[in-house]
């Protein structure tokens, strides 16, 4: 990503006395930027690695769903390869064919593979390929899922928790959360009860599409029938869910429940709660969470600091946000693009876009590269503060790197250009927004049309002297 050219930097910050930059150690952070705690990494289950990966990088060797064609393709592949095919190749071939065919045809190919190629000894993962396909078939009765499960059983593989996990994930990704719940109950009776990863995944899916009370219902039924109790991850998911719905009372209740169940909140829980407060512009409460963490001896991580700085910037408490930037560095965390962009956003909201540009300089001096969000934030800020020339310079830079504009910065830029009577330039920005697919055609056009309408009104209302400025243009 391009650096801000020196001309843009220096001319903006000339009038401002440079602050000492000793705040941050002069090492370039080598870690990847973290984002807000939407997906704590620990929720990724180890089972996933057992799934055969989709061969996206290769062309699908099977071009037709017809089974006899597929058998020919398989035979020719076997004939063409000199070294013996191993299990992974077989699985990959089966998966490629499964992607375009029906469950029955896949099973036929599977049988054909065993018959013509005795070296091929399918294991559990091979059956899971078929299972995953049958889950995506989308029939209402789980018929083909049971067909595959029975097929597995007759060949000597009884389903286990990995089987359940794969089935649940496939069903949920095909949008059949109800069927997944149904299947979990059935599988539990077949000695393949879900583990906590599957359980939490399902809770998360339910949270996305169901009401809070129906999620609780599911948790209750799991508790009573399978003795599966919610763990810390489950609570994190639930708290995240209710805070996203801006239901803080329920969140507080959940935190109390958590304590009653004997869990000690960890960093993820605190981050989630803090995010909830930040979302509602409750800066003081966010700081309270931070203090509570310190009291309880939970070490805040990068996400905690980013969330806190984001929240404080969002509700206009820039000085405090800057203070925590200092604290963060002291504690040995490296502020990343998210940290800096949050701060810049707050400064731009306060109208201090020059300060934000200065921060950009500091950020780059620390070796932290600005991202698309950073540029959009600054562009928005510059246009709002009537520093159109600087904004255009930044826009030119973004265009060079084919960065996308976001809705807000696109709209402010178009408006700022029209205000100066530079309608043709506004059309050019419109073209870029459409071409780079920054916003949809409709949104881009609606903004342009609305702005031009506003311009017409403004021209009719202003005093004659002012009118010339709007009319003359370039």
């Amino acid at each position: 990503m391009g650096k801000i050219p020196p001309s843009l930097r220096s001319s903006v910050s000339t009038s401002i006395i440079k602050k000492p930059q000793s705040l941050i150690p002069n090492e370039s952070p080598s870690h990847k930027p973290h984002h807000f705690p939407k997906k704590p990494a620990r929720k990724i289950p180890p089972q996933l690695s057992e799934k055969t990966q989709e061969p996206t990088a290769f062309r699908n060797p099977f071009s037709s769903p017809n089974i006899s064609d597929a058998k020919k393709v398989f035979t020719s592949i076997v004939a063409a390869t000199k070294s013996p095919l191993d299990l992974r190749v077989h699985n990959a071939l089966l998966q490629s064919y499964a992607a375009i065919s029906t469950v029955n045809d896949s099973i036929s190919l599977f049988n054909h593979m065993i018959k013509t190629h005795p070296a091929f000894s399918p294991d559990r993962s091979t059956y899971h390929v078929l299972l995953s396909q049958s889950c995506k078939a989308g029939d209402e009765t789980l018929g083909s899922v049971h067909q595959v499960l029975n097929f597995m059983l007759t060949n000597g593989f009884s389903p286990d928790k990995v089987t359940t996990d794969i089935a649940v994930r496939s069903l949920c990704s095909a949008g059949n959360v109800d069927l997944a719940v149904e299947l979990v109950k059935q599988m539990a009776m077949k000695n393949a009860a879900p583990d906590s990863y599957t359980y939490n995944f399902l809770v998360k899916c339910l949270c996305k599409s169901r009401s809070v009370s129906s999620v609780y219902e599911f948790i209750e039924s799991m508790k009573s029938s399978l003795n599966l109790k919610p763990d810390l991850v489950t609570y994190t998911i639930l708290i995240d869910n209710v805070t996203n719905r801006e239901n803080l009372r329920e969140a507080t209740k959940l935190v109390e429940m958590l304590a009653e169940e004997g869990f000690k909140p960890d960093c993820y829980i605190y981050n989630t709660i803090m995010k909830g407060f930040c979302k509602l512009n409750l800066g003081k409460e966010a700081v309270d969470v931070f203090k509570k963490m310190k009291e309880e001896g939970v070490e805040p991580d990068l996400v905690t600091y980013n969330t806190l700085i984001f929240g404080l910037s969002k509700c206009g408490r820039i000085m405090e946000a800057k203070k925590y930037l200092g604290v963060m560095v002291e504690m040995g965390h490296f502020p990343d693009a998210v940290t800096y962009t949050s701060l810049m956003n707050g400064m731009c909201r306060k109208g201090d876009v020059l300060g934000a540009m200065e921060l950009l300089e500091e950020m780059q001096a620390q070796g932290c590269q600005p991202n698309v969000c950073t540029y959009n934030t600054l562009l928005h800020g510059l246009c709002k503060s009537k520093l159109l020339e600087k904004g255009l310079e930044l826009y030119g830079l973004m265009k060079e790197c084919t960065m996308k504009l976001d809705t807000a910065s696109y709209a402010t830029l178009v408006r700022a250009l029209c205000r100066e009577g530079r309608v043709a330039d506004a059309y050019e920005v419109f073209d870029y927004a459409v071409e780079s697919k920054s916003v949809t055609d409709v949104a881009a056009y609606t903004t342009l049309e609305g702005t031009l309408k506003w311009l017409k009104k403004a021209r009719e209302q202003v005093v004659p002297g002012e009118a010339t400025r709007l009319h003359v243009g370039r």
Partner: protein
Amino acid sequence: MLPPVMKKTITDNPKKLANLIDLVNLPSTLREFTGQSQISRLGCFMRVWSYIKDNNLQDPNNKNVVNCDEKLRSVLLGKPQVELSELPTLIKLHFPKEPK
């Protein structure tokens, strides 16, 4: 997934969006210009604007003004010169509101 802003526009005002993207049977003048019998208002705007760009019809001294050639004049009320800022309004004239 639509961005939230768009989603809001649609839920707030489905009609407004509809009259922007619905295909409309065109009058003969527009039919000649576009070479199609149906087009949406958005599509028509895009067509006219790219026609202006492709034929370099923007005034070299003032890019905000378009010097219409004969073909363009036929769709823009016969005006010899139009301002870019009036373009959406002029095109909207061809897309009258549906009688209720």
